[in-house]
């Protein structure tokens, strides 16, 4: 075969490319390109009409320049002209230019489509193929509109050349992918299926892809393809390799077509027809048999091609999951690959075996390879192979081998790559829990996890060990003893201090009888770690200390001294200071009985799915926190009763200044309603309505309800004007009319929230019989509990009262509670209903994570229902800082440097509800040119993803 000479036919092009290659610097290259562009521009603009050859050459140069990465803003017309040339080489360059530089210039699209139409009708197979390839490469909607009905006709016409059929089939596939609505199914579909019988294997190869895609979308319409595919496959696998000469690749008969046919069959369950089924089984057996035969060639191409078919056949066997013998044979075959010298094969075998492990028929067979897999974990050089080994060990684990597998994973963890440590930790924790026969083993395993890879032990893991210890009294003494011993290590991980603090605080009494672990020794041991720990751990330890005071009266004085020290009582951290103050006070004033009640042992946690498992599946966060905070809450509850005035007096001043300057007349501009009343004056029809001194009992307007005398709250229009303004902030004016202004200040912590509602009387007259309550709609009941404290029934003119609402989020929710307010003003009863801005995102805790963690979680939340995406027009100027502030206000942590595109925003957080925690990842992509945003949310719950997306997308 003749070699193709360099740039043959286009000398100028070859010279130009050589020049570019000889450029010593980027500047020189740009200079040369600019010179060429000027030259081409002048040629295109010149008076002399260019001949086809020159046009082709210049268009080709432009294309080359474009492919070097430079912008091309002319030459499109010349390229389109080339399409109508009747010379192949000119046409080809024209089509190539169009395909590479797709331009949605509508004038050109019409011209291009015209040229394509001509070529499709030309009956010249070469031109038809160029046109079909162009459609397949561009795949635009305009092309689909123009040709979607034409291409099926070409595909099934009797006189169409084979190579054109191949192109037409894939062209149709492309249009079906990009514009499925424009590709009509019709009588051609039946005839397409019959292409599986075509003489030409290239046609079958292309058609199989088309049929597979169509069958995935509407399996019933393509059921007949099953028998044809089996027949075709059977002919291939039983053929002597010379039968298919052109399609034999390194002694393997039509490997790619076989793979495609096996893929097509994976769209369907095993054939119902017995004969067909046994024919397919025969094929699969033949493929498995061939794997055992000595290779016909030593070339890797031979084994790769053969094994490509084998792996696809195994996929089909696993997909059917119905033939035990085939499954076991597949497993044995993969077992051989586990020790193969080709890394590729070892990798693929581990991957494939992972799915086999979950089949009841092959689980046992997979287990026999445990030693090999463990060895892979220790010796493989490619981390992705080791990752597969971990996956497989996890998949093959059951009660019989759990101890061995957990031990191996733990020892691997000592040296494991950082990128997969957290996942291994989760897997070990799950297996240890799932297959624990005695829980001492479980406790040992988790403590080992913390020792070996403390940094990778997430909260879920250590929460879970505490849950389990609390729920199982047979292990509590052992756990106390073990953590006590573990805490003696010179450098123990902070997570161990947390677990130790918690467990000794609860169950330290179980080991206190031994003088070596007397209360004082326990306390001193814990306290020796205190100063090295972070604030949350210290807070936990303080709670452990107060529990000690209850458990061991003999150390009370020692602990009180610690609490009393300046480093606690005057700690710069408000949380620590508060705990120290409250615990000290509690220990001083409470009687032993009260202390024992408040600090009672934690009740068992309700049994629920393992939170870690949930995390691994990226379904949920941990279950209910084994909350050392609970004791704190009790304490807080008590304090509150003692000093309610203090709390109320503490917080409002700034708020009053900010929001409620109610003693002075409000400037009109700050209130939209008053603004309209004031500026539009008497000419505006609403003026009457807004005239507060004459209650408009019967005025015909929406606003009327708010002011009307009707007493039935049901008829009150619920105001939600300002609702969405509170999505990203917690404080502000919720509602305002001529009489009343409602301000809010709220704070949230995990699944609890507290809202201070301030009612400001804007008039000089008293409001009487003032009451306000919160109602939850039916849907919301059980999801969100709102407890409203009572409020003073009289509000003096110009005065303000405060109401406290305590909230608990039980599970994720969509609706919002309604605040119903009733009062008498000048003898008229006023009813106001306002949607209370308590949204799901209020229960967010921001989560910082590394880019790697983020992507790992993102990947794990990949199921379609977990993701919700919205593309929307920007409502406000697109300002980065404002957007950042909003995302932070939404409650998630903003993660810098995670998204490859710095213009995008990426955030992570955990929604805390009583029932569960839901991890949430979000990504916001601004498109400043189009003034659009794309918001993507991934959480483990579709309802949460949807709600969060709805809430946040309104904010930009």
């Amino acid at each position, binding site marked *: 075969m003749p070699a*193709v000479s360099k740039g043959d036919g286009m000398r100028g092009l070859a010279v130009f490319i050589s020049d570019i290659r000889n450029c010593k610097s980027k500047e020189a290259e740009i200079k040369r390109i600019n010179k060429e562009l000027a030259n081409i521009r002048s040629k295109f603009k010149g008076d002399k009409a260019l001949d086809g050859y020159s046009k082709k050459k210049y268009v080709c140069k432009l294309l080359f320049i474009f492919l070097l990465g430079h912008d091309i803003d002319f030459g499109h017309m010349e390229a389109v002209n080339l399409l109508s040339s009747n010379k192949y080489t000119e046409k080809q360059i024209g089509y190539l230019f169009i395909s590479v530089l797709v331009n949605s210039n509508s004038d050109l699209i019409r011209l291009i489509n015209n040229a394509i139409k001509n070529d499709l009708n030309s009956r010249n197979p070469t031109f038809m193929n160029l046109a079909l390839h162009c459609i397949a490469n561009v795949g635009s909607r305009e092309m689909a509109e123009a040709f979607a009905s034409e291409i099926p006709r070409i595909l099934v016409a009797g006189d169409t050349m084979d190579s054109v059929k191949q192109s037409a089939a894939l062209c149709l596939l492309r249009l079906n992918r990009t514009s499925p609505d424009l590709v009509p199914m019709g009588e051609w579909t039946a005839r397409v299926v019959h292409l599986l019988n075509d003489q030409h294997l290239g046609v079958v190869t292309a058609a199989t892809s088309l049929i597979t895609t169509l069958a995935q979308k509407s399996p019933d319409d393509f059921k007949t393809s099953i028998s044809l595919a089996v027949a075709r496959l059977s002919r291939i696998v039983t053929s002597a390799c010379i039968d298919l000469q052109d399609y034999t*690749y390194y002694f393997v008969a039509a490997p790619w077509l076989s793979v495609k046919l096996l893929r097509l069959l994976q769209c369907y369950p095993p054939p119902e027809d017995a004969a067909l089924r046994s024919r397919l089984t025969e094929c699969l057996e033949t493929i498995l048999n061939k794997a055992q035969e000595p290779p016909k060639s030593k070339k890797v191409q031979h084994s790769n091609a053969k094994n490509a078919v084998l*792996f696809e056949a195994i996929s089909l066997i696993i997909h059917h999951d119905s033939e035990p013998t085939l499954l076991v044979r597949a497993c044995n075959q993969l077992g051989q690959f586990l020790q193969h010298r080709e890394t590729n094969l070892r990798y693929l075998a581990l991957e494939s075996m992972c799915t086999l492990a979950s089949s009841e028929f092959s689980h046992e067979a997979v287990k026999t390879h445990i030693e090999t897999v463990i060895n892979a974990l220790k010796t493989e050089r490619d981390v*992705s192979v080791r990752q597969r080994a971990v996956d497989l060990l996890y998949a093959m684990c059951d009660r019989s081998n759990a101890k061995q597998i957990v031990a191996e994973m733990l020892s691997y963890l000592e040296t494991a790559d950082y990128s997969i440590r957290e996942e291994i930790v989760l897997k070990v924790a799950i297996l240890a829990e799932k297959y624990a026969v005695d829980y001492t083993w479980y406790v040992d395993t988790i403590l080992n996890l913390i020792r070996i890879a403390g940094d990778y032990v997430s909260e879920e893991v250590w929460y879970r060990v505490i849950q389990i210890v609390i729920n199982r009294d047979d292990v509590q003494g052992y756990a106390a003893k073990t953590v006590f011993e573990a805490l003696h290590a010179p450098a123990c991980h902070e997570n161990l201090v947390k677990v130790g603090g918690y467990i000794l605080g609860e169950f330290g009494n179980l080991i206190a009888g031994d003088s070596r672990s007397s209360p004082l020794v326990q306390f001193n041991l814990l306290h020796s770690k205190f100063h090295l720990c972070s604030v949350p751990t210290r807070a936990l330890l303080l709670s452990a200390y107060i529990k000690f005071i209850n458990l061991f009266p003999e150390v009370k004085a020692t602990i009180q001294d610690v609490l009393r020290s300046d480093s606690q009582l005057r700690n710069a951290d408000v949380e620590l200071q508060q705990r120290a103050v409250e615990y000290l006070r509690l220990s001083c004033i409470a009687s032993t009985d009260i202390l024992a009640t408040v600090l009672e042992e934690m009740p068992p946690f309700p049994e629920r799915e393992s939170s870690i498992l949930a995390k691994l599946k990226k379904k949920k966060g941990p279950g209910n926190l084994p909350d050392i905070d609970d004791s704190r809450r009790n304490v807080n509850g008590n304090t509150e009763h003692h000093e309610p005035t203090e709390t109320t007096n503490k917080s409002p001043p700034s708020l009053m200044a900010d929001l409620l300057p109610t003693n002075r007349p409000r400037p009109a501009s700050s209130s939209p309603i008053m603004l309209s009343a004031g500026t539009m004056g008497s000419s505006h029809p609403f003026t009457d309505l807004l005239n507060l001194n004459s209650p408009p009992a019967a005025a015909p307007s929406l606003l009327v309800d708010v002011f009307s005398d009707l007493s039935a709250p049901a008829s009150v229009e619920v105001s939600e004007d300002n609702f969405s303004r509170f999505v990203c902030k917690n404080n502000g004016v919720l509602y305002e009319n001529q009489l009343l202004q409602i301000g809010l200040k709220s704070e949230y912590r995990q699944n609890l929230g507290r809202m201070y509602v301030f009612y400001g009387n804007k008039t000089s007259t008293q409001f009487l019989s003032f009451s306000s309550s919160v109602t939850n709609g039916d849907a919301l009941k059980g999801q969100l509990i709102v407890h409203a404290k009572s409020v003073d029934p009289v509000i003096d003119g110009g005065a303000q009262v405060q109401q406290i609402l305590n909230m608990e989020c039980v599970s994720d929710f969509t609706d919002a509670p309604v605040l119903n307010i009733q009062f008498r003003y000048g003898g008229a009863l006023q009813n106001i209903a306002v949607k209370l801005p308590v949204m799901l995102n209020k229960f967010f805790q921001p989560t910082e994570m590394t880019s790697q963690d983020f992507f790992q979680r993102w990947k794990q939340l990949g199921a379609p229902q977990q993701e919700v995406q919205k593309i929307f027009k920007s409502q406000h100027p697109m300002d980065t800082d404002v957007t950042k502030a909003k995302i932070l206000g939404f409650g998630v942590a903003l993660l810098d440097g995670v998204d*490859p595109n710095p213009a995008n925003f990426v955030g992570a957080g955990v929604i805390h509800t009583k029932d569960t925690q839901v991890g949430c990842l979000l990504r916001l992509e601004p498109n400043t040119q189009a003034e659009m945003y794309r918001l993507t949310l991934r959480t483990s719950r579709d309802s949460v993803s949807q709600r969060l997306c709805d809430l946040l997308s309104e904010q930009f």
Partner: protein
Amino acid sequence: MQIRFILIQNRAGKTRLAKWYMQFDDDEKQKLIEEVHAVVTVRDAKHTNFVEVWALSSLLWEKNFKIIYRRYAGLYFCICVDVTDNNLAYLEGIHNFVEVLNEYFHNVCELDLVFNFYKVYTVVDEMFLAGEIRETSQTKVLKQLLMLQSLE
């Protein structure tokens, strides 16, 4: 079930062919080109020929893809497909393509791809179309290419 793109790069990261079967904007293409180069060139013979990627580009990291690649002298041939696709079939798909190039250009070298870039696209379209394998027979592909070569 579909090829997302085909890239041929040299060791220095110069692109010798980029064929896209999915909509990407120019920035994304550039990013992909750079990142494929970064992940592929650090791997050696002890590694597999497959790299799962999902932090690749803003568009790609929403889905799970993998790069199947093979190195020939200084050139990396890379095909990006879905994670569920058949690794070995695409790995040999690359080799089949390379053998065709080798025949067509008579001992193909990097420079052939540079000077005849517009012909390489024709070879690709003969063998891969709409992200699918179109023709696998080297004989048929070469026959067709020679026929086209003979046309004006």
